């Protein structure tokens, strides 16, 4: 029997369609069908200036907009050879780690609801709301923040930000304990996740899987440690791994990552000084401050040129990869020396990880397909772009 799962199925987390060939309740063959959310972002990038593209990147992986901003800005900065001030780098780290926590919370909540645990969803979204409030104070937006800009960040941290994040850091560890009390030893949770959706480490590497899925297979591969960016080498944190490589292992890795991210947020808060630049000084590339623009002729000219013509990086290309909540998020930009990118490609972690779905679910029961899709943690905006 051939069963069409999705594209409107709630547990496909968006609009994924999977064609399942079944023998009784066992999946014999699975063929994913994507593209329902394809918006041609990569083509649009080629017709925008470098700074205009930032708002598009927000809309790819909508649970990780700050990470998308960051990878794009790092790629443009590498193309230009720009150095970002330390203070801005720490603010970036602070923001993407909060984003990682919020993304993992959405994952945990929705995955729990897929498995039938309604209340965890409500608790996770309660805490996520606190993070979104922090983003709103920092960037003026809850989700599509566009906060990280080329050469730094958009705005100074708002008044009272230390107290706000401090309150969150104080509250969060006990909340994570609450989730674990509800789930980690829960018999239904164990029955649904243990020994479900296994994949061997060699297979996972060969299939280019990354992120918590790869780490749950036993390899401590994390771009923040292996190829540090944005001063991650100065932070002290662990890379949680498991060896069971099943859905339960992926759950445990993500919960442990929430705790590690809290540690990084705390360190980043201590490193961010009250005074200092949030943007690098590069006339013609970074928009001048408003004050200068009103008083200096040169600054006004630069401002006009940046927002009409844009800036032109030297011909060449750059590929930068960061660790998003879902795995390796890469951005490749090729420049031909004009103010618009010749090519802008995003290596979406959900897209590459989803590739292994048939391998993971073939031979499993139909009910386990939902657990497997859930623990790969796909975001369809990221898959289809």
């Amino acid at each position: 029997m051939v069963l069409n799962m999705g594209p409107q199925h709630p547990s496909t987390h968006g609009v994924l369609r999977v064609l399942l060939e079944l023998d009784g309740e066992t999946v014999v063959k699975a063929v994913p069908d994507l593209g329902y959310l394809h918006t041609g972002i990569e083509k649009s990038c080629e017709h925008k200036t470098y700074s205009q593209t930032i708002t598009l990147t927000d809309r790819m992986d909508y649970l990780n907009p700050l990470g998308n901003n960051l990878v794009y800005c790092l790629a443009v900065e590498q193309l230009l050879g720009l150095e970002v001030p330390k203070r801005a780098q720490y603010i970036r780290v602070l923001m993407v780690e909060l984003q990682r926590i919020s993304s993992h919370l959405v994952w945990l909540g929705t995955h729990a609801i897929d498995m039938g645990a309604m209340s965890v969803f409500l608790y996770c979204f309660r805490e996520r709301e606190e993070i979104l409030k922090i983003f709103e104070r920092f960037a003026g937006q809850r989700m599509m923040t566009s906060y990280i800009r080329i050469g730094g960040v958009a705005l100074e941290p708002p008044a009272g930000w230390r107290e706000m994040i401090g309150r969150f850091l104080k509250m969060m560890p006990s909340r994570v304990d609450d989730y674990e009390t509800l789930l980690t030893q829960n018999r239904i949770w164990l029955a649904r996740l243990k020994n479900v959706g296994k994949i061997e480490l060699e297979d996972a590497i060969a299939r280019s899987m990354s992120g918590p899925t790869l780490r749950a297979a036993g390899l401590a591969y994390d771009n923040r440690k292996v190829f540090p960016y944005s001063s991650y080498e100065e932070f002290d944190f662990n890379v949680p791994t498991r060896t069971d490589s099943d859905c339960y292992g992926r759950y445990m890795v993500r919960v442990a990552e929430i705790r590690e991210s809290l540690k990084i947020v705390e360190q980043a808060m201590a490193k961010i000084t009250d005074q200092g630049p949030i943007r690098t000084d590069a006339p013609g590339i970074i928009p001048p401050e408003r004050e200068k623009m009103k008083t200096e002729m040169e600054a006004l000219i630069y401002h006009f040129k940046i927002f009409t013509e844009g800036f032109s990086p030297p011909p060449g290309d750059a590929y930068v990869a960061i660790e998003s909540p879902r795995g390796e998020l890469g951005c490749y930009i090729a420049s031909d020396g004009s103010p618009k990118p010749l090519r802008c490609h995003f290596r979406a972690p959900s897209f590459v990880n989803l590739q292994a779905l048939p391998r993971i679910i073939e031979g499993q029961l139909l009910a386990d397909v939902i657990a497997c899709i859930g623990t790969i943690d796909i975001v369809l905006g990221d898959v289809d772009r």
Partner: protein
Amino acid sequence: MSESGGKNAGVVAEQLRAWNANAVSEVIEFHGETTIVVPRELLRITAEYCRAHLQFNFLSDATSVDRFPVEPRFELNYHLVSIPNRTKIRLRTRVSGAEPVVDSVVPVWPGAGWLEREIFDLMGIRFNGHPDLRRILLPDDWEGYPLRKDYPTEGYRDIPATFLPGFKKQ
């Protein structure tokens, strides 16, 4: 800014030259990244050598660039990572517009499967030996390859009447 190349990246080109003098036609260093340009015919065996002997066990990304109207217009970029050596390199091969065909690297890294399908779908480069070369993001009956430079950003379909030549505002 991240030091993405790693200190071993430059050595890789030498090792490849020592293995097969024809395999490396050009080495480009740009802002800390190493690009090794490989002739089109040698792409798969070079990739296989990188994986088997130089420990590039992880294919990070595969993507393409269209430099129309320059010939050969297409560029394929494979971003490789050696997890044991912590090294990154980029393998590049150039493909002409008249015959956009290249050997698939799926037999080397199965992870290339969907990435190459995406390139086929959006850029129209075909891969020999790919097990499942179908469109992936666009519908099966889509005409043309949108990421090519000679494909308009607005597409060919569903153009609002106001953009059509000869349209008069009422």
